[in-house]
């Protein structure tokens, strides 16, 4: 089978796809039904284990399923062409084969493989969309708020609440976050995908999410220390 790869960096082989392991540990009782006329999950795994014709047939069946299923759903992302779909499918087949041991049978195998395909497709689309934009450009337009005033339409009471929240968040963003946390939060607010932030920082999308998560927790704790809890935030900006 011809191998086609995107120009984007290959995923770190150490990084597990985690496509089958649901956090929380609780086993659900959901029993995925095989697609009508299709092979069962056990048959998919058995055939993919095979080094010969059974594996080749299973991969060809999965390829055919994805090539047929993806284009209609991808249509909303503009004209992408057959080559794009074929590249996504080839990358998906390689990843599905390499990570099949992570599939735990909590869904149909084809659905699990499709989650890989949509991530591969969207990662590439985001890379293309943002390839000419630097992090510096994005952050130029996303400086922390300075003296943002309350909504002119707010009641006097609500305006006072808003002013207190705005001043507090402004100080926290500027003084309490690490440089990387500030970059992650501000670039994301400016619309840059986490994947693209990570590409420019040399870290994974997961790590960017973690930076943002830690930043949000710091901001939440800082606001709470100032007497502003989640309910007060919602009330001020209701």
């Amino acid at each position, binding site marked *: 089978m011809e191998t086609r790869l995107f120009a984007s960096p290959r995923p770190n082989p150490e*990084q*597990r*796809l*985690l*496509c*089958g*392991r*649901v*956090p*929380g*540990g*609780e*086993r*659900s*009782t*959901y029993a*995925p039904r095989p*697609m009508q006329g299709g092979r069962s999950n056990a048959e998919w795994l058995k055939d993919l284990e095979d080094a010969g014709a059974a594996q080749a047939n299973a991969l060809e069946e999965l390829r055919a399923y994805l090539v*047929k*299923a993806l284009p*209609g*759903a991808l249509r909303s992302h503009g004209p992408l062409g057959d080559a794009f779909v074929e590249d996504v499918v080839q990358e998906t087949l390689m990843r599905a084969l390499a990570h099949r041991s992570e599939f735990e049978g*909590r*869904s*149909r195998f*084809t*659905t699990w493989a*499709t*989650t890989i*395909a*949509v*991530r591969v*497709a*969207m990662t590439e689309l*985001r890379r293309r969309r943002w390839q000419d934009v630097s992090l510096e450009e994005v952050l130029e337009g*996303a*400086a922390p*708020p*300075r003296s*943002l005033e309350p*909504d002119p339409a707010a009641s006097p009471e609500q305006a006072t609440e808003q002013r207190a929240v*705005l001043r507090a*968040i402004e100080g926290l963003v500027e003084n309490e976050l690490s440089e990387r946390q500030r970059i992650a939060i*501000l670039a994301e*607010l*400016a619309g840059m*995908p*986490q*994947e693209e932030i990570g590409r420019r920082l040399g870290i994974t999308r*997961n790590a960017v*999410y973690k930076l943002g*998560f830690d930043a*949000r927790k710091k*901001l*939440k704790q800082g*606001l709470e220390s100032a007497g502003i809890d*989640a309910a007060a*935030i*919602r009330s001020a*900006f209701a």
Partner: protein
Amino acid sequence: MPLDRRQIQRLLGFVADTRDDEIACDECLAGMAEFAERELEGVEVPEALRRTEAHLAACPECAEEYHLLVAVLRGAQSPAES
């Protein structure tokens, strides 16, 4: 140019909704296939997938991928696509 009011309100919304037990994108992907099948089949979502659901509500990229996944699955089920 500083963040505008809409962005600040979005940030405050994210901060207010922050939970200690959030999962990251890779963990969300782990539950996405089962979550999508359950949604399409109208089957109840178990507690173990609630954090996947919460992540999808908070992460625009995972939500975008989830909507694409559901669209693919709907298309695969549709007689018009077969």
